[in-house]
């Protein structure tokens, strides 16, 4: 399953106004570690589809979002619960790193 892409247009509706958990992966095509994280994020989108929404934000196309959420290094994932940031992780720490983040917030 491929993770959904969020953009400036739908971020409020799909992340901030959403109930429950939303994991957002801020990435760019030129970022090496992001390329490693990409397939893992897609996997998580499938495996956790009943527990959390897993999506991505391309920082080049959505600079407003990266600056609004203080993302200055990628990959950064930000975990939202009921629209509020509850956790974040910088750098790619393997699949388990992301899973831990989600499990802690469940």
């Amino acid at each position: 399953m491929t993770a959904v892409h969020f953009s400036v247009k739908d971020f409020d509706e799909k992340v901030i106004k959403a109930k429950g958990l939303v994991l957002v992966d801020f990435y760019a095509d030129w970022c090496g570690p992001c390329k490693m994280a990409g397939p893992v994020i897609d996997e998580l989108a499938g495996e956790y589809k009943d527990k959390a929404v897993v999506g991505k934000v391309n920082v080049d196309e959505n600079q407003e979002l990266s600056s609004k959420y203080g993302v200055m290094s990628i990959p950064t994932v930000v975990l939202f619960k009921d629209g509020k940031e509850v956790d974040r992780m910088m750098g790619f720490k393997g699949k388990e790193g992301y899973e831990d983040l989600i499990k802690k917030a469940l």
Partner: protein
Amino acid sequence: MKVGRFGSFRFKLIIIGSGPAGFTAGIYSGRAELKPLLFTGDKQGGQLMNTALVENWPGAEKGVMGSDLMMKMRKQAEKFGAEVIDKKVTRVDFSKRPFKVWVGEEEFQAEAVIIATGAENRMLGIPGEKKLLGKGVAVCAVCDAPFYKNKRVLVIGGGDSAVEDALVLTKYANEVKMVVRRDVLRASKIMVDRVKNSPKIEILWNSELKEVMGENRVEKVRMVNNKTNKEQELAVDGVFLAIGHKPSTEIFKRQLELDEKGYIKRLGEFTTMTSVEGVFAGGDVVDFRYKQAVTAAGMGCMAALDAERWLEKNYV
């Protein structure tokens, strides 16, 4: 977790590290059917993941993206049977065989170990630096420069990597100041010329950073001129550290002989063997001189061949 050759946690060979040395060791020992277990650490792919185009990798005549090269190396190692695990080794015990390797509480055993943990960015160790890492304090200009569009940034250091970082940043930032401890740049002439010709780069000589300040992101820094001892504060948005690397050998202290700078010494009967028989090392973790992708890969190959021969001799 898949089951290794000797059951659930004992392996013929464990490789620690996932740069060119680690993955090359994985490719060679995989082909030798040692079924190696490879721990990537938390910086999968190593330093090349943070570079752009690698132009000196032999055979890649048009250059190759560092991240693409590393992902291909990983796949190649996996193809030959290396089991790659995205975890960081936190503790080792090389005092007796089988050697023990821990990831947190999880224990693994190996008859032979190859260390290819490479080198990590040196930090200044000043107040504010850790707290604001990723919030304006950065160690990878290639990665993070685009977030500093029209901003004011400092680059700390006077060597080749500092100069490269400064030049990358000029494409985005409005103002790039290099903070150089001495009154010369250590970088190669061609790079120094590029800096001097860049209208955006200003060099602050004889200067040292003392503190990085800001609540949620970098707002300003305190620095001192080491000739005049004059302090000043400077408002900036980003601080890029480029003060070199140090070998990643923290967990091997008291296990292996290290030199005074922390590099692993090679002392055994095999070229890549460390002070402990059966433990081998290659790549930037032993190399203070060349530090190239291709030399690291070469040493990873050597370590794998040495480990294979040693295993043949010691474990039939």
